Structure formats: C-alpha cells, structure tokens
C-alpha cells in the first residue's frame, strides 16, 4: 500500500461482496471442486480408525484406535516405503529443477524462432505419452528373451542382461524416464519467468560487457530464485506421493525389484486391489498425507527463517 493513499471508509461485508460479485462468481466452480473432492471426503479419514461395517457406517462403526496402522510396522514395510518414496522424490525434484532451468536458459539463448518452436515442441511431447505405453516400450526394450537391448548384445556376442532382476539398476531407469517425461513440460514455467525479467537488466549487462555466461550467472539465475523456491515448496507438498502410474507400469508385480522400487502408492494400490480392505489402505493414505504435511511445514518454516518473502505462507 502506498503511503500517499488516502484512507477510505471501510465497506460493510455485504458491500464488499457486492462490489466483487463477478470475482466471487468466477471462484464458485473452483470452490465447488475443492469442497466436493478435497474437503467433503475429509471426515472419511475416520474410517482409518474404525473396524468398518456398512450397517453402522463410518461414524457408527467401532473405534479401534491405531490398530489399522499397526500392520505398517508389523509387515516391516514402513521404513522401506518411506525411504524409497522420499529418495525418489528428492531425485525427481533436485535433478528435475536443475534440468528444467538449464533447458529454459538454453531456449532463451536460441535466437532462431523457428528452431526454438520445433525443439520446444519435441521436448514437450514425452509429457503426453501415456505411462502405460512407456511401460510397454520399456519392456520391449529391456526384457531378457526378446528385448531390443539384449538382442543387440547377443548379436554382438555378449551375454544378455537380466535387467528385470537387477533391483539396483531400476532407480536409475525410473529417474531417467521420469526426467525424460517431465523436463520439457516443467521448463515452461522457468522459461516464462525468464521472459518476465526486465529487459533493461540485460541491456545494462550488455553495456557493462557481460558475456553470455555472466548474463546467466548474474542476471537470469538470481531472477529465477523466487520461482525456484516456490516450485520447490510446491513439489515438496507431493514428496510423499510419487509418479504412481510410471512406477506401476514399469514394475507391476515384479517382487524382485520391490526393495528399490516400491513406493507408498504402489504398495497401497496392490493392497486395495488384492484385499477387500479400505480401513488399512486409508490408514496408509493418512500416514502419507500427515508425513507430507509435516515436510511442507518444516520446509516452509526453514525458508521463512532464511528469507520471509520467499515463503509460501
């Protein structure tokens, strides 16, 4: 608020509503969406603490406390699942953002408009390929008996690789596929941020004799910092949920790879698919959400301590 503004008489609530009625109207669909899909189901969380039956419903069913959570510890899955989920997401977030920034900067440096549009289009495409298809392509490339890679190895006289039994290799494969799929699309926000940088800064840098590298180092990167931090905090919100479709379609029921590839979502999915059990799966879902919530709050608190303006709230 500027200091010179004269203080106005505060409108009544009704007056405020009336004057911004168009804005409110425009919000209604979004509000309805969030109420129906994000807030109305919240009481359903209670099911995780009950021994559910249809007759008594969610709130009438007997309360069993944390019993539905016990199996997470008993089955010995909790640590592996949490570790895998977090490590994958950290890799996705860190490598993803670095690549996205690099790509955005490269696009910015490309002067030929035609070439820029074409390459951007190509980088975008993988985002629109269904993960089901990616799973099939990966199997056709990597399987032992008929896979393209092993056929090549065999033809050149080597021993084929049992890739679908090599648990250690899959984090690499998954991360590469994830980056291939999402980088082009993700770079667009950074690209937009670069476009939004004051042109005067570039001109000034040029007059001062800055090289291309120096322009990037001293103008672009610092200007991208707020965007980076906001995107980073956003992605932390999803740190407990992975790219489910990708994991499921690449790994499926291959238990040989679970030790390094099972994330919370795939394990919950397997559980609901094979067991008529909503209470335990809701329990896992709740664990996932609470843990994710704690991570976002902590990260936001840290960011606030470093620089208040960059924090989400």
């Amino acid at each position: 608020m500027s200091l010179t503004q004269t203080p106005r008489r505060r409108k009544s609530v009704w007056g405020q509503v009336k004057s911004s009625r168009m804005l409110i109207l425009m919000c209604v669909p979004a509000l309805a969406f969030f109420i129906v899909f994000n807030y109305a189901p919240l009481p359903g969380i209670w099911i995780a603490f009950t021994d559910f039956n249809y007759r008594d419903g969610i709130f009438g069913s007997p309360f069993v406390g944390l019993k539905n959570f016990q199996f997470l510890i008993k089955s010995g899955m909790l640590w592996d699942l949490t570790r895998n989920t977090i490590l994958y997401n950290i890799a996705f977030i860190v490598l993803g953002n670095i690549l996205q920034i690099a790509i955005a900067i490269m696009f910015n440096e490309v002067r030929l408009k035609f070439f820029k549009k074409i390459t951007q289009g190509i980088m975008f495409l993988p985002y629109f390929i269904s993960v089901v298809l990616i799973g099939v392509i990966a199997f056709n490339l990597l399987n032992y008996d008929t896979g393209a890679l092993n056929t090549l190895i065999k033809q050149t006289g080597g021993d084929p690789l049992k890739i679908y039994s090599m648990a250690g290799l899959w984090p690499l494969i998954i991360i590469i596929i994830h980056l291939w799929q999402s980088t082009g699309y993700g770079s667009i926000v950074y690209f937009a941020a670069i476009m939004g940088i004051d042109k005067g800064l570039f001109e000034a840098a040029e007059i001062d004799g800055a090289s291309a590298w120096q322009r990037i180092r001293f103008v672009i990167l610092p200007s991208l910092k707020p965007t980076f931090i906001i995107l980073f905090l956003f992605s932390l919100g999803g740190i407990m949920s992975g790219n489910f479709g990708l994991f499921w379609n690449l790994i499926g029921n291959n238990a040989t790879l679970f030790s390094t590839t099972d994330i919370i979502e795939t394990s919950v999915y397997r559980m609901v698919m094979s067991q008529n059990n909503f209470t335990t799966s809701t329990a896992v879902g709740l664990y996932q959400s609470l843990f994710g919530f704690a991570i976002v709050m902590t990260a936001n608190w840290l960011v606030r301590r470093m620089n208040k303006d960059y924090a989400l709230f």
Partner: protein
Amino acid sequence: MKRRILRTGAVIATLGMGVTMLAACTAASEDDPSKPTAITMLVLGDKPSNGRLEAMLDKLNANLKKQVNATLDLYYVEWADWQTQYNVQLLSGDDNVDLITTATDWLFGWENAQKGAFLPLSEDMLKENAPKTWAQVDAAGDWELTKLDGEIQFIPEDNYTQYTNHGFFYRGDWAEEAGFPGGEITKFEDFTKYFQWVKDNKPDAYPWDAASGASNDAVLTGYLQGHTDQMTLQGVSAGNYFPYTTSESDPGTVTSWLMEGDELLGAAELAKEWNKIGVWREDSLNYDGDTREEFYSGLSGADQHHTQTFLTQIVDNMNKKQPGSNPKMFYWGEENGNLYKDIKTHGAMAVSANSKHPEKALQVYDLIRNDKTDYDLLNFGIEGTDYVMQDGKLGFPEGYDPSKDALGSNFWGGRMDEYEPLKVSDAPNLKDVYADLDKVARDYPYSTLIIDKSSIDPTLAAMGAVLSEYIPQLNYGKFDDPAKAIAEMRQKLKDAGYDEVRESLQADIDEWAKDHPLK
C-alpha cells in the same frame, strides 16, 4: 487411474449421505401397480456392446412384465479392478441395485454379509416371493450354508455342477513324443521331462508361457497339493494368497503349508529347476501377454486354469486351432487324490440391503432361476440368433464368433443343472470327467464356518505384503537360495502376526466344530 480416483472420491464423498440414507431406508414398497417395477441385478464381467444383451432383455422383460409386472436390468462391475470396484459399489450403499451376485469363496460373501450389505431373507419372504427356489434349496438342506447368526443372507447356486479346481493344460501329442505313454502325465514333477522336451524340440514355443498376475503361485500350489493332504481354508486371504490350511488327517487344526514342513522347499526347488530350463520367460514377472492365445497358437506347451475352462473352452479351441494336439489336463492333487468339490456358495445371489423392492427382486429371481423360458433367455439368449439346438446340444448359428457375439449375461447366482444342455463346444466326455472327479473329490468341510475377520484383518494385510514379495519369486524360481528365502519369509510372517491369526482361526473352528462334528 485418474478416473478411478475420481470415482472413488465421489463415492466416498457421497458416503456420508449414503450411510444416513442406509439407516433410514426400510424396504418401503412404493410400487405403482400399473407400472412394472424395474429390478437391477449386479453382475461381474465386461458389458457386451454388440446389442445382443439388449435384444435378449427386451424379450425377457416382456415375459417378466406379464409374469410379475417387473423388468430386469443388469449392472456390470467390469473386470478391470473388479475387486475394488465390487466392494466400493457395495460400500457406497447404492440403492439402485436390487440383486447382487456374490460368493463366499471369491466374492467376499461373508465379509459383505457381516458388514451388512445384504438384506437378511426371512423364510416367509422367500416362501411367498420365491417359492420354487425356497423348495428346491430347502429340499437339498442348503439354507444352512447361507446363514449368518441364524439369518439367511443369500441364495446359493446349489444345483449347478462345476469344477473350478486348477491344473495344467498340456498337449498330449507332445507329451507322447516326450515319452509319456498315451500322452498322459500323472505326476507334477514329471512336467520337468515334458517341459525339457518342449524346450529341446519346439524352438518357437515356451514350455509354459506364464504371465505375471493373480496366479503367481501356481507352481507352489500345484506341488503342495500333490505332496500333502492339506487344503486351503477359504475366506482367509492375505492379499492374493490364502496362507492357512487344514489337513485331511487332522481337519480340526489350522496350519499352513507355507509355514510348516519341507514341501514348500521342494516346490521352490522344482521352480528353480524349471526357471533354469527356461520353462517360462526370464521376465515372466513383468510379462502380461495373453498366454492362452499363445497356447492356442502352438507357442506355449502348457497353460493353467480350471477344469471348467478346460472342458468348455480349451478342448474345443485346441482341436480347432491345433488339430491333433490331443489336449490334456493334469489337475493339482491328481497324484494323491487331494481334491475338493466346489462349494455350493461358489455362486450365490443376495438382495441388497438398500433395495427398494426386495419382494419383487425375489419374484424376478425365482423366475430367472426356475422358469425354463426365462432361464434360457437370460443364459443363452434368443434361439436362432444367439444359439441353435442341434441333436439336444446347444450350438451356435453359422458365422457366430464367441469373442464378438457373446451374450455376456453372466448369471452366476442360480444356474440349474437340469436346464443346462451340453454345448457343441464342450468336451464330449464332460459328463464322464465330472463323474470321475466326483469319485475322488471330497466336500469342503467348512462351508458353514464364518470367520470373524475384524480382529485379524490388519494382520492379514501385513502378511499379504510379505507374501506378495516372496511368493511370486519362489514360484518362478528367482531366488538363488530358496531355503534361505523361505526361512526369511517365515520369519517375516511370524513378525507380521502369523501365530496370532492362526490362534484366532483355531478358536473360530473350535467353536464351530462344537455343532459341526468333523469326521
């Protein structure tokens, strides 16, 4: 996936309302006598889109209108994610469904009954609205099989013979060449010789092209059944697996062939040997191709599924697609006679607790089960277009393609032997095979045992997680040291609470056995 989440979200969102409605809902009859009552039946399967179902329903509904002033519609729970979809559908308390296909061994019959999804059926209600059904089930003494706390929960499909026991389908011609006289393989381990022969002599074919999926335990189960006298205790699933067993020699004691004895190791070592031979693809755990089609095309030396599948599909298809292949089946437990009949509630029909017209639903059910004209329409379709009768056998008109033209009404909750003609596609010796199996097979002794799952569910979930990691790998011979893997699995199952569940099941059986003496 996204759609599934949205749908589940929507269901949960309406759940609050649904549950209150559920409480308030009594089976009020609001029938306008002049207007036929619409009855909806929940069936499992993919809804056919060839128009034949609708044509059949038109005819069937014309009959039903005249007979009881009602019409029938089918609601499909499709095979994709069916377990989840089925249970979510019941969970949502949808009052648009009146009749629900269920089963106590594979469709969560008791669990859903315990959770109050079905309307308890009184004797009077059944006698009045489904008199023929009542009399038939009563005469067979089968109502006892459907009672929870003394109340009838569903109607059993108790007058229909089928065998859904699993086993290998293989080629008699290849087996003969491999040195089995008459192409007959009679021991589970003898498949090693057969598979090796296929590997050596049929370079295009996998000895057994097995795919990842629900049957990730076929080798283990097949071996265990033939090497022990144990039987699976139904209704106690941990994930996709049924870990608890009892034995014929000691039917009152709950145990597990996964936990006790050396047989599991024997099975795992055989699997390891088969994996080494290359019986299945190296990446069978990720392969999800249509292995039955491979078998039909001569690219696989074996397939595995039910006796029923073998007699009604495999024999006919193989004789047509691989003439001279002499298809054979070896069922699990064949070598030691460890075989049980299908339970009479392998198919059943319940009335939804939220049905607005339960009486009418029963009237309709009585007709589709007992009125031959209605039965034929619902199960076989319209004579002339969907099927033709040839010398007392049910056949299909010229140009009929079962994969495109099937009726797909999937009525699995009240079929009757006396209305089921042999089909031209059935194995000619179907009746003999059944008769032979009947001589060996025993009745499942625990049909009326209802297990209290509420306290053991979380533990079973934990065990399911452990099993889903170890069983597929043991089954496809993926561990270098199966003995070590089994020891590890057993320890993890114990940590997950194996003993706790075993004791709880033992208590259920002890209690139940007081009124139901085990021979």
